[in-house]
């Protein structure tokens, strides 16, 4: 019972800390007209066609990023834990590098490196660079999430058991490992999704019609619309992540069975 009390206590403290600033933003966004509560800032945002277009564009980019990142990270984390633990610090160093490489350096360096390829001659080519950059940005979070998830299952026994039943590596990864790190993967996916939706510098400099540049367009010029947009994008991203969660939980139950 005591445990339950403390759980509720921390939850309420947390909820207060996280919701009050959101409320403050919401409160400010309603003041677009002097002396009255008004949703005109929201109307201005939602009426803009670019809002929907850019949100949808970033949504798709985010999904692509999540898929590629998962496909790269899960085998890597699995392999490091299984066979190459001495390589772990090296891998972790590279996954944490994106934190200390400034986004402008990243994007200009990529523009230079690929300037003689068709990747920099069209918006579609640039989209490849965009997704590549975002996958790199997602590495720290994806790797940590998957690594944590792998630690809570005994991959050595599972691998041995699967191999003794004649499974190849691909089968092991796809049908033994993936389902067991599903929850952890979902966590990584959520973070990656939010990152892609909010990222600005790389998208802006690669001329991509993403949500980040759109939000920034409003933030510097207007007063109340940015707050309205912050609330809307928060709500929408939350809804999108909840959708991913809901779909994810459903398929997890199907794949992994009861725990």
């Amino acid at each position, binding site marked *: 019972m005591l445990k339950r009390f403390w759980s509720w206590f921390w939850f309420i403290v947390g909820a207060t800390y996280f919701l009050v600033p959101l409320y403050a933003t919401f409160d*400010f966004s309603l*003041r*677009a*007209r*002097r002396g009255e509560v008004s949703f005109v800032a929201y109307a201005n945002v939602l009426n803009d066609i670019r809002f929907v277009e850019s949100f949808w564009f970033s949504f798709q980019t985010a999904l692509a990023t999540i898929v590629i990142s998962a496909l790269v990270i899960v085998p890597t984390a699995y392999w490091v*834990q*299984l*066979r*190459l*633990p*001495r*390589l772990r610090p*090296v891998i972790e160093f590279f996954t944490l590098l994106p934190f200390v490489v400034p986004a*402008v350096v990243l*994007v*200009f*360096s990529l*523009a*230079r490196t690929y*300037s*003689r390829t068709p990747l*920099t*001659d*069209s*918006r579609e*080519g*640039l989209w490849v660079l965009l997704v590549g950059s975002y996958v790199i940005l997602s590495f720290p979070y994806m790797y940590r999430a998957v690594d944590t998830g792998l630690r809570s299952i005994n991959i*050595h026994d599972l691998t041995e058991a699967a191999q003794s039943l004649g499974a190849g590596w691909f089968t092991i990864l796809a049908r033994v490992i993936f389902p067991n790190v599903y929850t952890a993967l979902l966590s990584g996916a959520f973070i990656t999704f939010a990152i892609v939706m909010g990222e600005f*510098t790389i998208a*802006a*400099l*690669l*001329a991509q019609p993403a949500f980040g*540049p759109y939000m*920034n*367009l409003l*933030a*510097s*010029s*207007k*007063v*109340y619309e*940015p*707050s309205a947009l912050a609330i809307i994008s928060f709500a929408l991203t939350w809804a999108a992540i909840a959708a991913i969660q809901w779909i994810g939980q459903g398929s997890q139950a199907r794949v992994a069975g009861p725990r």
Partner: protein
Amino acid sequence: MSTEPRDWRRSRRAFLRAAVGAGAGAILAACGQAAPAAPTAPAATTAPAATTAPATTAAPAQLPPPSAPGPLTARDAGGLEKLIELARAEGNLSTIALPDDWANYGEMKQKFLEKYPFIKHEDLNPDASSAQEIEAIKANAGSKGPQAPDVIDVGFTWGDIAKKEGLLQPYKVEKWDEIPDALKDPEGFWYADYYGVMAFEVNTQVVKNIPQDWSDLLKPEYKGQVALAGDPTGSGQAINAVWAAALGNGGSLDNPMPGLEFFKQLNEAGNLLPVVAKPATIAKGETPIALRWDYNVLANRDQNAGNIDIAVVVPKSGSLAGVYVQAISAYAPRPHAARLWMEFLYSDEGQLIWLKGYATPARFEAMRKAGLIPQDLLDKLPKTDAPVGFPTGSQINAAFDMIKSNWPTVVGATVQ
């Protein structure tokens, strides 16, 4: 979690191999960047005459040679109609660092696209700094995609720097002669577009007693209320604010140190906030006194008229004018669309759009004499008797350098 010793040794060896490889790669990369790469340099110097700069030590040795520059004037292109045709064939224009609410660029872009609907516009990073714009040209040299900027709008000194690095191509708009000589490059590589004066933006609902001068800002009633609009070691607007403060505190265009001293006092009095002032923070009242260009202040005032009361004050004892320049990238994938954009900016229509945004355009004097400016627009312009300094390129370089290097030690707090 045990693994065989064999794997450990293999991983260690492989790790060492990787580290050596990375180190060698880094050294090679460093050599490649430092030494002028032989094959491309001669090609650059034999490029058509427009790039007058001989291969200097800063020669973009690893930048590909730019394609032949476009026509120098509209007449060279075969007339404005021909230029429009060529631009139509290109179909796109990429601009960079043009926020909608800065000097009424929003309307400028909108009217341009209405006039030439065949142009698809790419609005690259509206928040880019001048350095980022130049870097964008360099990083995308040789690329044809929408991320390579065609035109740039940079701080005054960057025009010359970019020209020396061979990053620009010259173009003289039809009304070239009406741009004052001090504000353009004689060969046409860069040309001033507009300027504004540093002013106080005051939220009068929060600040009842409006400060009129620099010395007023030091008063205790303004504690925790004054803020800059950017980083005073990086943002042009913020650095100019410091320099303008110098003009009002005994300094001069050649001596910006009093400005730093002033901000040191402001900081010690507790009046200076480290927050970056934005329209939202001003409206909220958190930074009710912000130092910004007058055209930004007035645009904000107009946009929020009826809701927030903003006053614009040019400090009595002196302020500073900040000039920005336009240029076309030497690597512009759409050079004719770029020229069309320039023609529009310097047309009567374009210049008046800037004036509507309260930014004084380059052709202001000539247009005023010719009676091309509507009286109501003239009336709306703020009047001020305060002395305004117009710095030269070398003064800007020196002052920016001094402010930038001295801010952290004079004003900035060195923590612990």
